[in-house]
Protein backbone atom coordinates (compact mmCIF):
# COMPACT_ATOMS: atom_id res chain seq x y z
CA UNK A 1 0.00 0.00 0.00
CA UNK A 2 2.75 2.38 1.03
CA UNK A 3 4.73 1.47 -2.06
CA UNK A 4 1.89 2.25 -4.48
CA UNK A 5 1.19 5.55 -2.68
CA UNK A 6 4.81 6.57 -3.10
CA UNK A 7 4.68 5.63 -6.73
CA UNK A 8 1.56 7.75 -7.18
CA UNK A 9 3.24 10.82 -5.67
CA UNK A 10 6.34 10.16 -7.71
CA UNK A 11 4.17 10.14 -10.87
CA UNK A 12 2.53 13.45 -9.92
CA UNK A 13 5.97 14.96 -9.24
CA UNK A 14 7.21 13.79 -12.66
CA UNK A 15 4.24 15.40 -14.42
CA UNK A 16 4.84 18.66 -12.57
CA UNK A 17 8.53 18.64 -13.57
CA UNK A 18 7.69 17.94 -17.20
CA UNK A 19 5.13 20.73 -17.37
CA UNK A 20 7.69 23.14 -15.95
CA UNK A 21 10.30 21.90 -18.43
CA UNK A 22 7.90 22.47 -21.34
CA UNK A 23 7.14 25.99 -20.20
CA UNK A 24 10.82 26.83 -20.00
CA UNK A 25 11.51 25.24 -23.35
CA UNK A 26 8.68 26.97 -25.17
CA UNK A 27 10.49 30.24 -24.61
CA UNK A 28 13.38 28.92 -26.66
CA UNK A 29 11.31 27.44 -29.48
CA UNK A 30 10.29 30.52 -31.37
CA UNK A 31 7.67 32.02 -29.05
CA UNK A 32 8.46 35.73 -28.82
CA UNK A 33 8.62 36.90 -25.23
CA UNK A 34 8.00 40.51 -24.44
CA UNK A 35 11.26 42.03 -23.25
CA UNK A 36 11.09 43.46 -19.80
CA UNK A 37 13.57 46.16 -20.74
CA UNK A 38 12.66 49.46 -22.41
CA UNK A 39 13.13 49.75 -26.15
CA UNK A 40 14.89 52.66 -27.80
CA UNK A 41 13.52 52.95 -31.34
CA UNK A 42 15.79 54.46 -33.94
CA UNK A 43 14.27 55.35 -37.31
CA UNK A 44 16.93 55.39 -40.02
CA UNK A 45 20.71 55.48 -39.84
CA UNK A 46 21.66 58.05 -37.17
CA UNK A 47 25.14 59.34 -36.35
CA UNK A 48 24.93 58.68 -32.64
CA UNK A 49 22.67 56.81 -30.26
CA UNK A 50 22.56 56.55 -26.44
CA UNK A 51 21.15 53.42 -24.88
CA UNK A 52 20.71 52.53 -21.24
CA UNK A 53 22.39 49.37 -20.06
CA UNK A 54 19.94 46.49 -20.26
CA UNK A 55 17.63 48.26 -22.72
CA UNK A 56 16.79 47.14 -26.24
CA UNK A 57 17.88 49.13 -29.27
CA UNK A 58 15.58 48.78 -32.27
CA UNK A 59 17.00 49.91 -35.61
CA UNK A 60 14.60 50.56 -38.47
CA UNK A 61 16.45 50.85 -41.77
CA UNK A 62 15.28 51.31 -45.34
CA UNK A 63 15.33 48.08 -47.33
CA UNK A 64 13.67 46.45 -50.32
CA UNK A 65 12.41 43.00 -49.26
CA UNK A 66 12.23 41.65 -52.81
CA UNK A 67 15.74 42.66 -53.81
CA UNK A 68 17.84 40.07 -51.98
CA UNK A 69 19.60 42.80 -50.01
CA UNK A 70 19.64 42.96 -46.23
CA UNK A 71 21.35 44.87 -43.47
CA UNK A 72 24.08 42.82 -41.88
CA UNK A 73 26.34 43.55 -38.96
CA UNK A 74 29.85 43.90 -40.34
CA UNK A 75 31.81 43.42 -37.11
CA UNK A 76 30.54 41.73 -34.01
CA UNK A 77 29.50 44.33 -31.45
CA UNK A 78 30.92 44.09 -27.94
CA UNK A 79 28.48 46.31 -26.11
CA UNK A 80 25.39 45.24 -27.99
CA UNK A 81 24.01 41.77 -28.48
CA UNK A 82 22.04 41.10 -31.67
CA UNK A 83 18.82 39.59 -30.37
CA UNK A 84 17.27 37.97 -33.41
CA UNK A 85 19.05 34.87 -34.62
CA UNK A 86 17.19 35.58 -37.83
CA UNK A 87 17.73 39.30 -38.24
CA UNK A 88 15.82 39.52 -41.52
CA UNK A 89 12.61 41.10 -40.31
CA UNK A 90 10.93 43.31 -42.86
CA UNK A 91 7.91 45.47 -42.40
CA UNK A 92 5.44 45.69 -45.19
CA UNK A 93 4.78 49.09 -46.74
CA UNK A 94 1.81 50.76 -45.11
CA UNK A 95 -0.42 50.72 -48.18
CA UNK A 96 -3.01 48.34 -49.51
CA UNK A 97 -1.60 45.91 -52.09
CA UNK A 98 1.90 47.40 -52.34
CA UNK A 99 3.61 46.99 -55.70
CA UNK A 100 6.20 44.22 -55.92
CA UNK A 101 9.64 45.71 -55.41
CA UNK A 102 8.32 48.49 -53.23
CA UNK A 103 10.76 49.57 -50.49
CA UNK A 104 9.99 48.77 -46.88
CA UNK A 105 12.00 48.56 -43.69
CA UNK A 106 14.22 46.05 -41.98
CA UNK A 107 14.27 45.88 -38.19
CA UNK A 108 17.26 44.89 -36.11
CA UNK A 109 17.13 44.44 -32.34
CA UNK A 110 20.10 44.70 -29.99
CA UNK A 111 20.39 44.43 -26.24
CA UNK A 112 22.81 46.77 -24.46
CA UNK A 113 24.92 44.40 -22.41
CA UNK A 114 27.95 46.47 -21.42
CA UNK A 115 28.66 50.12 -20.72
CA UNK A 116 30.96 52.04 -23.04
CA UNK A 117 31.24 53.46 -26.58
CA UNK A 118 31.54 51.66 -29.88
CA UNK A 119 30.71 52.04 -33.55
CA UNK A 120 28.01 49.82 -34.98
CA UNK A 121 28.96 48.95 -38.56
CA UNK A 122 26.16 47.74 -40.80
CA UNK A 123 26.27 46.86 -44.48
CA UNK A 124 23.38 46.58 -46.92
CA UNK A 125 24.35 43.72 -49.19
CA UNK A 126 23.50 40.32 -50.58
CA UNK A 127 25.16 37.45 -48.77
CA UNK A 128 26.13 35.81 -52.06
CA UNK A 129 27.81 38.90 -53.48
CA UNK A 130 30.84 40.93 -52.45
CA UNK A 131 29.51 44.35 -53.42
CA UNK A 132 28.09 46.57 -50.72
CA UNK A 133 25.06 48.60 -51.76
CA UNK A 134 24.92 50.86 -48.69
CA UNK A 135 26.49 51.33 -45.28
CA UNK A 136 25.38 52.58 -41.90
CA UNK A 137 27.73 53.59 -39.07
CA UNK A 138 26.26 54.51 -35.73
CA UNK A 139 28.22 55.68 -32.70
CA UNK A 140 26.62 53.91 -29.78
CA UNK A 141 26.99 54.91 -26.17
CA UNK A 142 25.74 52.46 -23.57
CA UNK A 143 25.34 54.24 -20.23
Amino acid sequence: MMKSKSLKWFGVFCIYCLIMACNVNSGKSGVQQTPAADTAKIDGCKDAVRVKLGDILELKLNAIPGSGYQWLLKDSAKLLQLLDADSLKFSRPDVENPAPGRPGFQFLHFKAIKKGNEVLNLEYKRTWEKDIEDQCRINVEVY
Partner: protein
Amino acid sequence: MKPKLIIAWLVALLLISPAGFSQGNPQNDGQKGKKSQQDKDNDAKKLNGQGQQEFAKANADFKKVNNPSFDISANNEVNNVADKKNLHGISGAPNDADADKQDNENKKNEKQISDKLKAEKNIAGASLDAGGKGGGKQPSASTTGVGAAWTDGSFWATYMAVPTRNQGGCGSCWAFAACGAFEHTYKYMFGATLDLSEQDVVACGMSSCGTTDAGSCGGGWSDRALSWMTCRGVASEAAYNYTATSGPCYSKPVYKKAYTWGRVPYYDGTYRKEWIKYYLTIYGAVTTYMRAGLSTFYSYAGGVYNGYPNQGGWGNIDHAVTIVGWSESLQAWLIKNSWGPTWGFNGYAWVGYNQCNIGYYCYFVYPNQ
Protein backbone atom coordinates in the same frame (compact mmCIF):
# COMPACT_ATOMS: atom_id res chain seq x y z
CA MET B 1 -4.90 2.76 -7.62
CA LYS B 2 -3.25 1.03 -10.49
CA PRO B 3 -5.39 2.52 -13.32
CA LYS B 4 -4.68 6.00 -11.96
CA LEU B 5 -1.00 5.29 -11.93
CA ILE B 6 -1.15 4.13 -15.53
CA ILE B 7 -2.98 7.32 -16.54
CA ALA B 8 -0.39 9.41 -14.73
CA TRP B 9 2.44 7.72 -16.59
CA LEU B 10 0.59 8.03 -19.92
CA VAL B 11 0.20 11.77 -19.39
CA ALA B 12 3.88 11.97 -18.55
CA LEU B 13 4.78 10.14 -21.76
CA LEU B 14 2.53 12.42 -23.77
CA LEU B 15 4.29 15.47 -22.40
CA ILE B 16 7.73 14.26 -23.33
CA SER B 17 6.69 13.37 -26.89
CA PRO B 18 8.66 15.28 -29.57
CA ALA B 19 5.63 17.36 -30.63
CA GLY B 20 5.78 19.12 -27.32
CA PHE B 21 9.22 20.40 -28.11
CA SER B 22 8.83 21.17 -31.79
CA GLN B 23 11.12 23.90 -33.02
CA GLY B 24 10.27 26.52 -35.59
CA ASN B 25 6.98 27.59 -37.00
CA PRO B 26 6.21 27.29 -40.71
CA GLN B 27 3.68 30.09 -40.43
CA ASN B 28 6.31 32.39 -39.05
CA ASP B 29 9.24 33.14 -41.26
CA GLY B 30 10.14 30.19 -43.32
CA GLN B 31 11.38 27.43 -41.08
CA LYS B 32 11.49 24.20 -42.97
CA GLY B 33 10.87 20.73 -41.65
CA LYS B 34 13.76 18.30 -42.05
CA LYS B 35 13.76 14.66 -42.97
CA SER B 36 15.05 12.18 -40.48
CA GLN B 37 18.42 10.58 -41.13
CA GLN B 38 16.67 7.27 -41.69
CA ASP B 39 14.40 8.78 -44.35
CA LYS B 40 17.40 10.35 -46.02
CA ASP B 41 19.26 7.04 -45.99
CA ASN B 42 16.24 5.32 -47.51
CA ASP B 43 16.03 7.98 -50.24
CA ALA B 44 19.71 7.56 -51.01
CA LYS B 45 19.31 3.79 -51.37
CA LYS B 46 16.84 4.34 -54.22
CA LEU B 47 19.48 6.01 -56.37
CA ASN B 48 21.17 4.14 -59.20
CA GLY B 49 24.59 5.00 -60.61
CA GLN B 50 23.43 8.08 -62.50
CA GLY B 51 21.29 9.19 -59.60
CA GLN B 52 24.21 8.92 -57.20
CA GLN B 53 26.32 10.99 -59.55
CA GLU B 54 23.67 13.72 -59.77
CA PHE B 55 23.11 13.68 -56.04
CA ALA B 56 26.85 13.92 -55.38
CA LYS B 57 26.94 17.08 -57.52
CA ALA B 58 23.99 18.52 -55.62
CA ASN B 59 25.68 17.67 -52.33
CA ALA B 60 28.87 19.36 -53.48
CA ASP B 61 26.89 22.51 -54.28
CA PHE B 62 25.12 22.29 -50.96
CA LYS B 63 28.41 22.20 -49.05
CA LYS B 64 29.29 25.58 -50.49
CA VAL B 65 26.36 27.16 -48.66
CA ASN B 66 27.25 28.89 -45.41
CA ASN B 67 24.97 27.97 -42.53
CA PRO B 68 22.18 26.58 -44.72
CA SER B 69 18.69 26.99 -43.37
CA PHE B 70 17.43 24.06 -45.42
CA ASP B 71 18.50 20.53 -46.19
CA ILE B 72 18.64 18.42 -49.31
CA SER B 73 17.91 14.75 -49.75
CA ALA B 74 18.17 12.28 -52.58
CA ASN B 75 15.39 12.16 -55.16
CA ASN B 76 15.15 9.04 -57.28
CA GLU B 77 13.85 11.10 -60.21
CA VAL B 78 17.47 11.88 -60.99
CA ASN B 79 18.00 8.22 -61.85
CA ASN B 80 16.82 9.02 -65.34
CA VAL B 81 17.34 12.48 -66.69
CA ALA B 82 17.79 11.40 -70.29
CA ASP B 83 14.49 12.78 -71.52
CA LYS B 84 15.46 16.41 -71.40
CA LYS B 85 12.35 17.71 -73.12
CA ASN B 86 10.13 16.45 -70.34
CA LEU B 87 12.14 18.40 -67.85
CA HIS B 88 10.28 21.49 -68.90
CA GLY B 89 6.92 19.84 -68.34
CA ILE B 90 4.04 19.28 -70.72
CA SER B 91 0.52 19.68 -69.47
CA GLY B 92 -2.89 18.80 -70.84
CA ALA B 93 -5.52 21.45 -71.28
CA PRO B 94 -7.73 22.29 -68.32
CA ASN B 95 -11.40 21.34 -68.49
CA ASP B 96 -14.57 22.97 -69.76
CA ALA B 97 -15.86 24.31 -66.47
CA ASP B 98 -12.68 26.17 -65.75
CA ALA B 99 -12.25 27.38 -69.30
CA ASP B 100 -15.48 29.30 -68.83
CA LYS B 101 -13.91 31.23 -65.99
CA GLN B 102 -11.01 32.62 -67.95
CA ASP B 103 -10.46 36.32 -68.19
CA ASN B 104 -12.63 37.84 -70.89
CA GLU B 105 -9.64 39.60 -72.33
CA ASN B 106 -7.84 36.31 -72.78
CA LYS B 107 -10.87 34.76 -74.37
CA LYS B 108 -11.11 37.50 -76.94
CA ASN B 109 -7.50 36.96 -77.86
CA GLU B 110 -7.48 33.19 -77.91
CA LYS B 111 -8.67 32.65 -81.44
CA GLN B 112 -6.24 35.20 -82.81
CA ILE B 113 -3.37 33.80 -80.79
CA SER B 114 -4.24 30.29 -81.78
CA ASP B 115 -4.26 31.15 -85.46
CA LYS B 116 -0.99 32.99 -85.13
CA LEU B 117 0.59 30.11 -83.26
CA LYS B 118 -0.53 27.64 -85.88
CA ALA B 119 0.75 29.82 -88.65
CA GLU B 120 4.14 30.40 -87.09
CA LYS B 121 4.96 27.33 -85.17
CA ASN B 122 3.29 24.16 -84.08
CA ILE B 123 4.06 23.77 -80.42
CA ALA B 124 3.91 20.17 -79.34
CA GLY B 125 0.65 19.13 -77.77
CA ALA B 126 -0.56 22.58 -76.99
CA SER B 127 -2.76 24.84 -79.01
CA LEU B 128 -5.03 27.25 -77.27
CA ASP B 129 -8.17 26.06 -78.99
CA ALA B 130 -7.62 22.67 -77.41
CA GLY B 131 -8.86 24.23 -74.20
CA GLY B 132 -12.34 23.21 -73.10
CA LYS B 133 -12.30 19.84 -74.81
CA GLY B 134 -11.54 17.89 -71.72
CA GLY B 135 -15.17 16.87 -71.26
CA GLY B 136 -15.10 17.88 -67.62
CA LYS B 137 -12.18 15.66 -66.79
CA GLN B 138 -9.51 16.80 -64.45
CA PRO B 139 -6.47 18.06 -66.35
CA SER B 140 -3.67 15.58 -66.38
CA ALA B 141 -0.17 16.68 -65.62
CA SER B 142 2.15 14.26 -67.33
CA THR B 143 5.32 15.86 -66.18
CA THR B 144 8.58 14.17 -65.48
CA GLY B 145 10.44 15.22 -62.40
CA VAL B 146 13.75 16.95 -62.47
CA GLY B 147 15.55 16.49 -59.17
CA ALA B 148 19.09 17.75 -59.48
CA ALA B 149 18.96 17.99 -63.27
CA TRP B 150 19.97 21.64 -63.27
CA THR B 151 23.50 20.33 -63.24
CA ASP B 152 22.88 18.98 -66.72
CA GLY B 153 24.28 21.48 -69.19
CA SER B 154 22.30 20.36 -72.23
CA PHE B 155 18.97 21.09 -70.51
CA TRP B 156 19.99 24.68 -69.97
CA ALA B 157 21.53 25.01 -73.40
CA THR B 158 18.35 23.83 -75.09
CA TYR B 159 15.59 25.35 -73.04
CA MET B 160 16.98 27.93 -70.69
CA ALA B 161 19.74 29.64 -72.64
CA VAL B 162 18.63 33.09 -71.56
CA PRO B 163 21.19 34.60 -69.19
CA THR B 164 20.18 35.43 -65.65
CA ARG B 165 19.87 39.16 -64.93
CA ASN B 166 20.54 41.24 -61.88
CA GLN B 167 18.20 44.00 -60.73
CA GLY B 168 20.72 45.29 -58.17
CA GLY B 169 19.42 47.48 -55.38
CA CYS B 170 16.53 48.87 -57.43
CA GLY B 171 13.01 47.55 -56.82
CA SER B 172 12.60 46.72 -60.50
CA CYS B 173 11.87 42.99 -60.15
CA TRP B 174 8.54 43.55 -61.92
CA ALA B 175 10.33 44.79 -65.08
CA PHE B 176 12.83 41.91 -64.96
CA ALA B 177 10.01 39.40 -64.58
CA ALA B 178 8.21 40.87 -67.60
CA CYS B 179 11.34 41.00 -69.76
CA GLY B 180 12.26 37.51 -68.53
CA ALA B 181 8.89 36.12 -69.61
CA PHE B 182 9.24 37.81 -72.99
CA GLU B 183 12.80 36.52 -73.51
CA HIS B 184 12.00 32.95 -72.43
CA THR B 185 8.83 32.80 -74.49
CA TYR B 186 10.72 34.13 -77.48
CA LYS B 187 13.44 31.52 -77.00
CA TYR B 188 10.80 28.82 -76.54
CA MET B 189 8.82 29.80 -79.61
CA PHE B 190 11.38 31.10 -82.05
CA GLY B 191 14.67 29.68 -80.76
CA ALA B 192 16.56 32.99 -80.56
CA THR B 193 18.02 34.60 -77.46
CA LEU B 194 17.12 38.23 -76.83
CA ASP B 195 18.41 40.79 -74.38
CA LEU B 196 15.67 43.33 -73.71
CA SER B 197 16.18 46.61 -71.91
CA GLU B 198 14.70 46.48 -68.42
CA GLN B 199 15.82 50.09 -68.04
CA ASP B 200 13.52 51.08 -70.91
CA VAL B 201 10.61 49.45 -69.07
CA VAL B 202 11.53 50.92 -65.67
CA ALA B 203 12.12 54.45 -66.94
CA CYS B 204 9.51 54.70 -69.69
CA GLY B 205 6.93 51.94 -69.09
CA MET B 206 3.27 52.97 -69.00
CA SER B 207 0.22 50.75 -69.02
CA SER B 208 -2.49 50.94 -71.68
CA CYS B 209 -0.36 52.97 -74.05
CA GLY B 210 0.40 55.75 -71.64
CA THR B 211 -2.27 56.14 -69.00
CA THR B 212 -0.55 54.82 -65.88
CA ASP B 213 3.08 54.56 -64.86
CA ALA B 214 4.15 50.92 -64.83
CA GLY B 215 6.58 51.44 -61.99
CA SER B 216 10.05 52.50 -60.94
CA CYS B 217 12.84 51.49 -58.56
CA GLY B 218 10.16 51.92 -55.92
CA GLY B 219 8.24 48.93 -57.23
CA GLY B 220 5.87 48.30 -60.12
CA TRP B 221 3.64 45.87 -61.94
CA SER B 222 4.65 43.26 -64.50
CA ASP B 223 1.22 43.35 -66.14
CA ARG B 224 1.63 47.05 -66.87
CA ALA B 225 5.09 46.35 -68.27
CA LEU B 226 3.65 43.72 -70.60
CA SER B 227 0.92 46.13 -71.61
CA TRP B 228 3.65 48.63 -72.51
CA MET B 229 5.56 46.04 -74.50
CA THR B 230 2.41 45.26 -76.46
CA CYS B 231 1.47 48.86 -77.09
CA ARG B 232 4.82 50.48 -77.70
CA GLY B 233 7.49 47.76 -77.60
CA VAL B 234 10.82 47.63 -75.82
CA ALA B 235 14.37 48.67 -76.65
CA SER B 236 17.37 46.36 -76.63
CA GLU B 237 19.77 46.20 -73.71
CA ALA B 238 22.56 47.28 -76.07
CA ALA B 239 20.67 50.46 -76.91
CA TYR B 240 19.50 51.21 -73.39
CA ASN B 241 21.73 49.85 -70.64
CA TYR B 242 20.46 49.00 -67.20
CA THR B 243 21.44 51.62 -64.63
CA ALA B 244 19.26 50.53 -61.67
CA THR B 245 17.66 53.98 -61.55
CA SER B 246 14.08 55.10 -62.04
CA GLY B 247 14.84 57.50 -64.84
CA PRO B 248 14.94 59.66 -66.84
CA CYS B 249 13.23 58.10 -69.86
CA TYR B 250 15.16 58.34 -73.10
CA SER B 251 13.51 57.55 -76.39
CA LYS B 252 15.27 54.56 -77.89
CA PRO B 253 14.42 52.53 -80.97
CA VAL B 254 11.94 49.71 -80.43
CA TYR B 255 13.71 46.37 -80.65
CA LYS B 256 10.87 43.93 -79.98
CA LYS B 257 7.14 44.22 -79.49
CA ALA B 258 4.54 41.85 -78.05
CA TYR B 259 1.56 40.69 -80.07
CA THR B 260 -0.56 40.38 -76.97
CA TRP B 261 -0.47 39.54 -73.29
CA GLY B 262 -2.94 38.38 -70.67
CA ARG B 263 -3.55 37.02 -67.25
CA VAL B 264 -3.50 33.33 -66.48
CA PRO B 265 -6.85 32.36 -64.91
CA TYR B 266 -6.33 33.29 -61.35
CA TYR B 267 -9.10 32.04 -59.08
CA ASP B 268 -8.22 29.73 -56.24
CA GLY B 269 -8.89 26.05 -56.35
CA THR B 270 -7.70 22.76 -57.71
CA TYR B 271 -7.03 23.98 -61.21
CA ARG B 272 -5.06 27.15 -60.57
CA LYS B 273 -1.72 25.45 -60.93
CA GLU B 274 -2.98 23.39 -63.85
CA TRP B 275 -3.74 26.60 -65.70
CA ILE B 276 -0.25 27.86 -65.04
CA LYS B 277 1.19 24.64 -66.42
CA TYR B 278 -1.07 24.91 -69.42
CA TYR B 279 0.15 28.42 -70.19
CA LEU B 280 3.74 27.37 -69.57
CA THR B 281 3.25 24.61 -72.10
CA ILE B 282 2.16 27.12 -74.68
CA TYR B 283 4.37 30.10 -73.90
CA GLY B 284 7.31 28.59 -72.03
CA ALA B 285 7.19 31.20 -69.28
CA VAL B 286 4.82 33.38 -67.27
CA THR B 287 5.45 36.11 -64.75
CA THR B 288 4.33 35.72 -61.16
CA TYR B 289 4.29 37.81 -58.02
CA MET B 290 5.46 36.19 -54.81
CA ARG B 291 6.68 36.66 -51.26
CA ALA B 292 10.49 36.63 -51.25
CA GLY B 293 11.60 38.79 -48.33
CA LEU B 294 12.46 35.75 -46.21
CA SER B 295 15.83 34.82 -44.79
CA THR B 296 15.40 31.21 -45.87
CA PHE B 297 14.61 32.29 -49.41
CA TYR B 298 17.58 34.65 -49.45
CA SER B 299 19.86 31.79 -48.46
CA TYR B 300 18.37 29.31 -50.92
CA ALA B 301 21.08 27.55 -52.89
CA GLY B 302 19.48 24.37 -54.22
CA GLY B 303 16.79 21.77 -53.61
CA VAL B 304 13.09 22.60 -53.33
CA TYR B 305 12.15 25.65 -51.30
CA ASN B 306 9.22 24.84 -49.02
CA GLY B 307 9.89 27.46 -46.39
CA TYR B 308 6.83 29.69 -46.64
CA PRO B 309 3.44 28.02 -47.15
CA ASN B 310 0.89 30.25 -48.91
CA GLN B 311 -0.67 32.74 -46.56
CA GLY B 312 -2.31 36.08 -46.96
CA GLY B 313 -2.76 35.33 -50.67
CA TRP B 314 -3.28 38.36 -52.79
CA GLY B 315 -1.81 41.05 -50.64
CA ASN B 316 1.18 39.21 -49.25
CA ILE B 317 3.67 39.70 -52.06
CA ASP B 318 6.87 41.71 -52.38
CA HIS B 319 8.62 40.40 -55.46
CA ALA B 320 8.13 39.40 -59.09
CA VAL B 321 9.83 36.54 -60.93
CA THR B 322 9.36 34.41 -64.04
CA ILE B 323 8.09 30.83 -63.90
CA VAL B 324 9.86 28.81 -66.59
CA GLY B 325 8.92 25.23 -65.74
CA TRP B 326 7.62 22.83 -63.15
CA SER B 327 8.08 19.34 -61.82
CA GLU B 328 5.29 17.06 -60.67
CA SER B 329 7.61 14.80 -58.74
CA LEU B 330 9.14 17.74 -56.90
CA GLN B 331 5.73 19.43 -56.65
CA ALA B 332 7.50 22.66 -57.49
CA TRP B 333 7.77 25.55 -59.91
CA LEU B 334 11.07 26.35 -61.58
CA ILE B 335 11.47 30.08 -61.23
CA LYS B 336 13.96 32.51 -62.68
CA ASN B 337 14.96 35.23 -60.26
CA SER B 338 16.69 38.55 -60.97
CA TRP B 339 19.26 38.42 -58.19
CA GLY B 340 22.19 37.51 -60.43
CA PRO B 341 23.60 34.13 -61.44
CA THR B 342 25.25 33.43 -58.10
CA TRP B 343 21.97 33.22 -56.19
CA GLY B 344 20.18 29.83 -56.10
CA PHE B 345 21.45 27.62 -58.87
CA ASN B 346 22.48 29.83 -61.77
CA GLY B 347 19.91 32.36 -60.61
CA TYR B 348 17.03 29.84 -60.65
CA ALA B 349 15.14 28.05 -57.89
CA TRP B 350 12.63 25.28 -57.30
CA VAL B 351 9.78 26.61 -55.20
CA GLY B 352 7.03 24.30 -53.91
CA TYR B 353 3.62 24.65 -55.59
CA ASN B 354 1.90 26.06 -52.54
CA GLN B 355 4.70 28.26 -51.31
CA CYS B 356 5.42 31.99 -51.26
CA ASN B 357 2.01 32.93 -52.67
CA ILE B 358 3.21 32.08 -56.15
CA GLY B 359 0.54 31.81 -58.82
CA TYR B 360 -2.07 34.30 -57.65
CA TYR B 361 -0.96 36.83 -60.23
CA CYS B 362 0.51 35.25 -63.38
CA TYR B 363 0.79 36.85 -66.80
CA PHE B 364 1.80 35.50 -70.17
CA VAL B 365 3.13 37.40 -73.16
CA TYR B 366 3.06 36.46 -76.80
CA PRO B 367 5.92 38.18 -78.64
CA ASN B 368 5.96 39.19 -82.25
CA GLN B 369 8.73 37.45 -84.09
